[in-house]
């Protein structure tokens, strides 16, 4: 069912999903998706609205647990370890698999406290100096340090939309995750802010495994090295981004990337 593009040489998977299905009540939102997510690349999920790409993304750090009617079947592994067992602590999992949301959602706290939140709850930084260091490092990595270093005590919600989103990325980085999931991180931003986020994703590439859901095919082409095309709850095709965009195998992929629907 899923076409794996022949040019894709399987490298070692950071996360591996095998025959994953997700139900909301009786409705099947994801139908037997299997995918290997590499550790050293950016992987993009593309597809029309309602195709299940966000739902699938949220299974990777068990955020679907917060929806009472959602049910996940199949196997999802992080470094070969099943994340849907009772032995896997969801708190630890989410510290290792961070997430950035569609709409920037900084906490109504200061910029400093937004970043310090994660390290504090996970006990990664205890003293003031340690926290200061984590805050500076995370903001630097997110490319936000120069803009906010003089007003760390201002509220995070007072920043512009693009800055808020970079703050959320910095917040996710602060707990030193292995994987960062981004759910349409630029859909609420203007083109300049979008460009900055894309630049940031490029910078972070290699340090973290990044999975990005996006509506924009140009964005997928710009930032990712792997692309998976989702349609109606199924993963239709998966391969190197360049192959998917220039040489798709499935007709539906071809139709989508040439803008025939979606």
């Amino acid at each position, binding site marked *: 069912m899923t076409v794996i593009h022949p040019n894709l040489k399987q490298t070692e998977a950071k996360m591996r999903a095998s025959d994953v299905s997700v139900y909301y009540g009786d409705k099947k939102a994801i139908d037997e998706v299997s995918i290997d997510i590499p550790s050293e690349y950016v992987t993009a999920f593309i597809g029309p609205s309602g195709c299940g790409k966000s739902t699938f993304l949220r299974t990777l750090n068990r955020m679907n647990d917060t929806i009472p009617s959602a049910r996940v079947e199949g196997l999802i592994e992080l470094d070969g370890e099943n994340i849907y067992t009772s032995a896997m602590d969801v708190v630890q999992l*989410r510290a290792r698999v961070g997430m950035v949301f569609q709409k920037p*959602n900084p906490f109504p706290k200061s910029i400093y406290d937004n970043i310090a939140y994660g390290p504090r709850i*996970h006990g990664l930084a205890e003293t003031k100096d340690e926290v200061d260091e984590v805050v500076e490092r995370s903001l630097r990595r997110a490319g936000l340090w120069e803009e906010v270093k003089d007003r760390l005590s201002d509220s995070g919600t007072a920043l512009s939309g693009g800055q808020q989103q970079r703050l959320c990325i910095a917040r996710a980085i602060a707990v030193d995750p292995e994987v960062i999931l981004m759910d349409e991180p630029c859909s609420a931003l203007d083109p300049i802010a979008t460009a900055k986020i894309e630049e940031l994703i490029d910078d972070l590439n290699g340090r973290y495994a990044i999975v990005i859901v996006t509506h924009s095919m140009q964005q997928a082409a710009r930032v990712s090295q792997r692309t998976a095309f989702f349609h109606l709850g199924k993963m239709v095709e998966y391969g190197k981004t360049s192959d998917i965009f220039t040489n798709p195998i499935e007709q539906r992929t071809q139709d989508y990337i040439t803008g025939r629907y979606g």
Partner: protein
Amino acid sequence: MSPITLFLIAFGLGLAGWLAARAKAWSFQQESGAKRMAARPNYHAWYVALWIVIPTLAFALIWTLAAPQLVIQSVLASEAASRLPEFGFQRESILSEARAVASGNAGSVFNPAAQEFVEPFREAINRYHLIGIAVAVVIAFGCGVASFLRLRPDFTARTRVERTVMAILLLASLVAILTTFGIFASLVFETFRFFGMVNPIDFLFGTFWGPDPMSNPDNPDGSRYGAIPLFWGTIYIGAVIAMIVAIPLGLMSAIYLTQYAHPKVRAWVKPTLEILAGVPTVVYGYFAALTVAPAIRDMAYSVGFTSASSESALAAGLVMGVMIIPFVSSMADDSIAAVPSAMRDGSLAMGATTSETIRKVLVPAALPGIVAGVMLAISRAIGETMIVVMAAGAAANLTGNPLEAMTTVTFQIVAMLTGEGSFDHPATLSAFALGFVLFMVTLGLNFVALRVVKRFREAYE
């Protein structure tokens, strides 16, 4: 009965006007054929009906208020009136007795002097009744015909009807506001009378409360009107003891209901909690006085506090706190639920546990709403009367011991107004001054609370 007749005339003619106008508008529509009318026939009908009903009802209202005065005047103009006693009270009673017999509310007169006024009264009442009906009919017809003649196919009846409806709605919302001003004005008036007799400084800062309604009203002893013990009792019971109960319990129940409760549990716990808010306060009063207060006294005895009183601030405060729980919890519930779920997801996605998310993100974000809820709850608690009347006692003690009897502003208002004293006496008037202070404090609290809530809402919209 005159008012009912007038109302029937207004609505009867209104209905007639409605039907007539509708028929006429229909005929316009038939004639004009394809051409569209500016408004649909029903709006023409309502236009005429409103023009008939509103002026006629306005007249009916004025007439109902004015007619009794006119009746009295015409009776007093009769020659028998010259034989009425001069003294106001006797005069009043004779007249009101005669009126009762004349209008059929009483069978026969008790005071023979009233007998000769029965007939003039009956005549006058009948005369003004007929005049009222005649004028109402004239007004209704006049307005009805005038408005009916304005109907044209291109007449914009709809916009006019809608404007009128809006005016009616505005009037309805003004009633409550104007009443508040009226209450305020009457309080201010009586309060100034009181402060003319007792120095405001003595009242606001004195520490002894013991008004004597039997003392000479012309020379009140200002030192007996120190309201500090009452303010203290009010704050201690309503804002301290009650809040120690209500804030933690209300907040915790709100957190449980919004974050942990299964939808099925929430579906019956939340309405049950809200029913608490509907229990009459007098029932809480029974509970406080008959169950809680004796239990507290016995417990205090058993641990050696032999001075414990059978009426205590603690009993009243505890029960009041329970009464307030639904207010705190429903405000807290609303404001926690108003925190965007993105905030909660963001925290959970950081690997925070549910309780960390609640403590560090949701409650701080919802804090303004929660604070506002607490302030509204306090303003309700300090205005609460029945529980303290029944359970807190009447002694104006200035003490921090919750096992002693205390009294509150509301209790003293009741005590002063239901006593034997006359309305000219400062002891009675002090009730108005107390009410004024209470009114100002609760008004201030509500004002601040609503401002806080408003700013909080803006932050997320």
